[in-house]
């Protein structure tokens, strides 16, 4: 087959010693920068892009792939160890991962994230190489009404992150939805809840909310209890590696996460966050030990991390076949291509086949390199927790605010960050879950836009959602998923009464 020959050619380029070194350097600095809280893979790649320009195209793209994967992995490291996700797609990872790290199981959590990312990226890259052209044909058929159906499904899954009380979970979600209103409405240009402050016209950045609620909220919370209940995270308890049980609980989660992540990532407006929510919910439902969720279940790290990486490979489908960047990271990658006068698009696979396969091969190499470099480093990362608390949290706050300032050096942004920190502290203190707020901010505007675009195209006729089989099916799934638990509960209650 032609594709396989081209792939082998790509590998022969990527495997040259010099290029292997570039890959290693890329992975290393990508991880080092990505590990800083508040700096996700998109900013990492954007910041380090100029470094790659100094190399020849081949070496540059290989280094670039390394930085990309390194940045992705670095983002989940801080989520797990410090409860400060570097990007929105790592929010779900923080939920179980940080609980594991606190219980001295940071090693296995990092390992399952690394191996899960590796497996997902490997499978997804193969899928990218062979399925991209047909997949994209399906993906562009995804119309606003279909997105609305997908959003409804995603909303139903949020309840998995609610913790003990649905009322408090919904309140947190409502807070996120409310923040999602802020800014200029994309469809009409109407300003919502901006109170005349021009800096609010662009709305609230998801990273600002996530870093504020998680990193700063966490710092305030830990500080407030420091005097009364000095809590030291336990760096390592038991083996630093995954046990046999960890393996048997992880591998299915990796594969399921990949299956969820890749196709949604390939949708032009799918994004990386929704697959992580879906994967978390699926793992919680299928787990043999659902009671462990909320206190450190390894599936809750393995699944979402795999989903995140698979969806990242998925975003390359529209990028390479349509020239359509669907995530911040993809947008930066597009800029990387354009530096070499290569415009990704429908002709890329035919005109620059060598480059596409070179990139695919580089992604493979970078992926392997990441695993080789980072598994031994797990022990080192876990030692981060041995830094004395005052310096650890001082450092977290400096890096977290630096990430915000680097993206947008405005006082309003910093005030928002601080305010979200205070809200995050109060939410922790009164037992409100923080993750639903981030989910609300991500999903709210997407659902709003999808709904209103559909109605605009149908001239206001709501039947449009049911006339298209695809959206009708998704809405039905969402409805069933919402109602089923109540029905089952009612049935068992009923049987109980009969007895």
């Amino acid at each position, binding site marked *: 087959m032609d594709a396989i020959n081209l792939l082998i050619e790509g590998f022969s380029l990527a495997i040259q010693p010099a290029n292997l070194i570039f890959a290693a350097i890329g992975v290393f600095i990508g991880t080092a920068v990505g590990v800083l809280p508040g700096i996700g893979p998109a900013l990492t790649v954007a*910041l*380090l892009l*100029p470094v790659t320009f100094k190399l020849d195209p081949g070496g540059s793209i290989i280094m670039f792939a390394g930085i990309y994967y390194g940045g992705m992995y670095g983002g989940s490291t801080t989520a797990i160890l410090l409860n400060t996700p570097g990007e929105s797609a790592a929010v779900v990872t923080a939920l179980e991962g940080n609980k594991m790290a606190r219980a001295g199981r940071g090693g296995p959590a990092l390992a399952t994230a690394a191996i899960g990312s590796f497996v997902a990226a490997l499978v997804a890259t193969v899928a990218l190489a062979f399925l991209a052209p047909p997949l994209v044909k399906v993906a562009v058929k995804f119309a606003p009404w279909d997105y609305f159906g997908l959003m409804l499904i995603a909303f139903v899954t949020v309840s998995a992150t609610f913790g003990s009380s649905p*009322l408090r979970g*919904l*309140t947190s979600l*409502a807070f996120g*939805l*409310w923040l999602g*209103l802020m800014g200029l*409405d994309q*469809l*009409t240009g*109407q300003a*919502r*809840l901006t109170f005349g402050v021009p800096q609010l016209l662009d709305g609230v950045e998801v990273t600002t909310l996530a870093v504020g609620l998680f990193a*700063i909220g966490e*710092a*305030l919370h*830990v*500080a*407030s*209890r*420091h*005097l*009364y*209940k000095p809590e030291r995270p336990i760096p390592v308890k038991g083996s630093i590696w995954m046990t046999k049980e960890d393996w048997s609980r992880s591998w299915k989660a990796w594969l399921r996460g990949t299956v969820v992540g890749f196709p949604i990532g390939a949708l032009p407006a799918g994004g990386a966050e929704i697959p992580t929510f879906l994967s978390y919910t699926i793992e919680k439902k299928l787990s043999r030990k659902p009671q462990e969720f909320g206190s450190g279940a390894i599936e809750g790290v393995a699944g979402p991390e795999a989903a995140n990486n698979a969806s990242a490979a998925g975003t390359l489908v529209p990028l390479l076949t349509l020239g359509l960047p669907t995530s911040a990271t993809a947008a930066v990658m597009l800029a990387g291509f354009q530096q070499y006068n290569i415009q990704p698009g429908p002709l890329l696979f035919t005109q620059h086949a060598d480059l596409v396969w070179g990139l695919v091969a580089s992604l493979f190499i970078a992926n392997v390199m990441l695993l080789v470099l980072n598994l031994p480093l797990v022990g080192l990362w876990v030692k981060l927790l041995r830094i004395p*608390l*005052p*310096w650890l*949290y*001082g*450092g977290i*706050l*400096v890096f977290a*605010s*630096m990430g915000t*300032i*680097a993206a947008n*050096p405005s*006082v309003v942004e*910093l*005030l928002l960050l*601080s305010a979200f920190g205070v809200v995050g*502290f109060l939410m922790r*203190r*009164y*037992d409100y879950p923080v993750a639903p707020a981030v989910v609300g901010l991500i999903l*709210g505007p997407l659902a*709003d836009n999808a*709904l*209103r*675009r*559909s*109605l*605009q*195209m*149908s*001239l*206001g006729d709501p039947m449009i959602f049911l006339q298209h089989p695809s959206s009708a099916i998704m809405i039905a799934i969402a409805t069933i998923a919402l109602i089923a638990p109540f029905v089952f509960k009612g049935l068992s209650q009923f049987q109980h009464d009969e007895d």
Partner: protein
Amino acid sequence: MTERSLKLANRPAVVVAMVLFAVAAVTYWDASQMTARATYGMGANAASYFICLFLAVLGVGHLLTAFQTPAIEAEDADWKAIGGIAIALSGLVGSIWLGAGFTLGSTLLFAFTARAFGRKSLVVDLAIGAFMGLVIFLLFNKLLSLALPQGPFERLF
């Protein structure tokens, strides 16, 4: 039964309910002020009204629980430590606001956060913070050519 519903058992829940009602009111007011109209389908205020309703329902929910379930015992908090971090954050915001630069801001942020966590030697922490801030600044501005806010101090480089 009546006795129980009269007793306020959960003060935080009442406060949250009030906040929710207030936010709902602001959202309603904001939505009623909107001028841009969608020619087809729903306008931008539809989502505002929906969330306004959602917030109000949650507010009622909180009020109901306030009279039914007792509050979770909030732990004692070390308000001095919270204050320390508040100073740290205002130090950062202040120095960006007044154009004193990133390095000073992160120095104050680091040192006062460390102090909030019980460190005594402020001078050492200030030095560490300043060093860290400077290294970050140089890394971003020189190596990555991304301009972090500059004050008089940063312009020396």
